[in-house]
């Protein structure tokens, strides 16, 4: 008898089918990877299992009995826990308060037992290597630590089924190791684990089996030993030749020595440092570094989000005093945080597309259908709300919003976060095309491999590594490797004066 079983689950949002007749089962102690492209229904499936989304049809069984829950709290009572990239942490509470929120220890049935709460929290924090964060407000934690706390929160609930929805994407290497150990430990105890991730290396290093989903359907499930990366990717997508540029030829980009964008001694407020950058026409620049070393600060400052900056663009000296000005001058900014900085969720796809073009720049309307189709956006009609699209499709609309205006410089801050392999390849291709047409692309990514995939195949490209608010290394050509990025990212004597 499987530990958990889904039979013919379906769910639609409006006219968009999220899951269609999905079935699979999970054994006791099994670590199962779930792999799928954008809108393949992984996250919806996770939410259905966790009780936060109600399926339209289908049956769920847990330990052989029907699993009928009406809320996350009921699922939690049955020890079916989900932990997701959409963190469930409340930023105004402390770490320990967040950890115990699902089941607050009580004394005398009515009151909170503060001591028990602290004890419970410190035990788990020690396990994940964050004991020093006891009592700290979650809003004061960096993102990677927030993800670890989110993970710890699920552990505290002693899961028998644990669904992990892409929480490793923001973690550091050493944290990923801790994470893997804990997952293995859970599995040894008999917990069934669903691991949703795009990171192949993680999938291959911890999972026992893998379920592939596409377009809301379960394609198949394999023991991990029977598949390799290429096979999986092949199953995910109809055009495997584009993935990550691995099999792709170097693109011919118009050679140009003309400096399109030049920044001199731009101050990064948070670090008190000054940085400079010259970018030539057609260049793709990857910005790398450890989490929070100023990569985001750099691109955001450059875009005018942190106050006045002085730049030289297309042979013009410019005082950028607002984002509006940046956009007018041909800068574009793509954020990976779609929900907050990308989409206008209650507005239509068409309005989302026109946000920059007609609202900010008052230009003539775009050819929307052509744009959407050329990026392969899956949609019903352009007047439907964008929130009905899957995450990856939403991000494509946001990208189309910018490329439709022919920007001179495209700045991207971790633009492929939470996007599947296939869409990621599409995005890289779009960036390459843009550079080929003479623009500059500057991209920050938390994923070193991604940066390598983006820049390596291109001639006019480099990776700049940041540490403590400064550029510490520039990698070009054959030097562009994950290994070199990591070694340049780490603090070394001579680089950091402290």
């Amino acid at each position, binding site marked *: 008898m499987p530990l958990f079983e889904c039979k013919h689950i379906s769910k639609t949002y409006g006219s968009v089918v999220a899951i269609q007749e999905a079935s699979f089962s999970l054994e006791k102690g099994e670590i199962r990877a779930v792999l799928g492209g954008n809108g393949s229904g992984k996250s919806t499936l996770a939410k259905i299992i966790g009780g936060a989304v109600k399926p339209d049809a289908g049956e769920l069984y847990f330990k052989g009995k029907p699993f009928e829950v009406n809320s*996350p709290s009921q699922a939690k009572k049955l020890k079916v826990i989900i932990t997701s990239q959409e963190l469930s942490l409340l930023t105004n509470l402390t770490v320990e308060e967040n950890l115990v929120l699902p089941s607050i220890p009580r004394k005398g049935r009515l009151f909170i037992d503060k001591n028990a709460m602290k004890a419970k929290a410190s035990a788990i924090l020690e396990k994940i290597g964050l004991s020093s964060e006891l009592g700290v407000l979650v809003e004061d934690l960096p*993102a990677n630590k927030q993800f670890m706390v989110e993970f710890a929160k699920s552990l505290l609930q002693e899961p028998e089924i644990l669904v992990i929805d892409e929480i490793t994407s923001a973690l550091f290497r050493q944290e990923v190791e801790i994470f893997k150990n804990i997952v293995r430990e859970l599995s040894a105890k008999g917990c069934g684990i669903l691991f949703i991730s795009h990171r192949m290396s993680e999938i291959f290093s911890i999972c026992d089996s893998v379920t592939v989903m596409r377009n809301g359907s379960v394609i198949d499930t394999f023991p991990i030993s029977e598949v390799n990366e290429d096979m999986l990717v092949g199953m995910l997508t109809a055009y495997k030749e584009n993935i990550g540029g691995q099999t792709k030829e170097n693109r011919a980009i118009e050679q140009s020595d003309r400096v399109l964008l030049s920044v001199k001694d731009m101050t990064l407020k948070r670090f008190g440092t000054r940085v400079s950058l010259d970018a030539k026409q057609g260049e793709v620049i990857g910005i790398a570094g450890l989490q929070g070393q100023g990569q*985001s600060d750099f691109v955001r400052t450059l875009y005018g989000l942190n106050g006045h900056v002085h730049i030289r663009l297309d042979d013009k000296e410019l005082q950028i005093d607002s984002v509006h000005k940046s956009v007018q001058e041909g800068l574009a900014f793509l954020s990976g945080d779609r929900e907050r900085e990308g989409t206008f969720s209650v507005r239509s796809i068409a309005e989302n597309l026109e946000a920059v073009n007609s609202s900010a720049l008052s230009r003539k309307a775009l050819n929307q259908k052509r744009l959407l189709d050329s990026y392969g956006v899956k949609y019903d009609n352009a007047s439907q709300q964008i929130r009905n699209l899957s995450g990856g499709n939403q991000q494509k609309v946001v990208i189309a919003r910018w490329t439709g205006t022919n920007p001179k410089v495209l700045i991207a801050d971790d633009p492929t976060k939470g996007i599947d392999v296939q869409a990621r390849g599409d995005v890289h291709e779009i960036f390459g095309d843009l550079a080929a047409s003479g623009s500059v692309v500057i991209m920050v990514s938390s994923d070193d491999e991604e940066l390598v995939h983006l820049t390596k195949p291109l001639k006019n490209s480099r990776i700049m590594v940041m540490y403590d608010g400064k550029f510490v290394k520039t990698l070009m050509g054959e030097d562009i490797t994950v290994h070199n990025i990591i070694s340049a990212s780490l603090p070394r004597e001579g680089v950091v004066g402290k």
Partner: protein
Amino acid sequence: MNTFKRKLLNWSSFPSLVLIIALSVINSFLIPHFFSMSYISSFLTSYTPLIIVAMAQTFVLLGRGIDLSVGGIISLVNVIVVTLFGQGWSFPSAIAVGILAGIIIGVLNGIVIGFLRVTPLLATLATTSVAAGAALWIMPFPGGSVPIEYVMWYQSNVIGFLPTPLLFIIISILIWFIWKATPAGLQLYSMGRDIQKTYVSGVPVVWIQFYTYVSSGFISAIAAIALTGNTGAGDPLVGNTYTLFAVAAAVIGSVSLMGGSGDIFGAIFGAVFLGLAFSLIYAIQIPSTYQDLTSGVIVLLGIIGASLMKKRKRTFSFKPSHIKPIGGNQP
């Protein structure tokens, strides 16, 4: 010592405390006997209902709701207590029924907002009509009375020098501490910050919402009992003016309308600030046609002042402080 200082400076209610101190200094020059016991006791007699109703509002605001029905509840409780007493009920039992009525309106709010998911602003706008209409129906015309002993007791000192109104405030604070000490206290703050995340964390959020509105109804009823000690009679329109002042007091006390931050002491300070502002206007003889303008400007300055002080604390980052990036590169 240093951590105490830091804690104090970071305390959400600190700005309103500063406002109170500033206004007290001004008032002490302009109002004779400002620091006398008799002044303080008469101040408390007058403003205790406002202080309490601001606390009631705080419960709801913390959970990212709003309760516009508090004024209606006060009127309703007031006329019920007076009417029942007039019909020969014992005063304590009349009070018990009155408080029950407050709770019932709170329950109505809680059901409509928590379970049936109507926007709080409009739901309570509708229930305030229900409460106020019921009050007017029960007592179409001001009148009746409560035992004179009760009025005397309310306006005297309960033990030695402790003014009785403080007792009502203390009871309300007690309710707050009970709330805070239970899981519901933690869940309230978390719900105020993000209801969806709190729901996903397995917290029964609709019940927490329900409790906040019931508590608000209950505490507003306490405010009504205090007010009845001050008026000694029934009046179907008596609570009208409290609703918006309660919101203003809470906001001046840095209780966020966005939920999840602030505490009950901020609300108390905010209410005291309003009281001091009005006292100031009564004391300095402003021409009557300019009084409304003056009080309006003072209240507005209070709001702006509290906001500015709060803002100074978070200088870094252009993002609203309540939403932090998820997985972005910023710490």
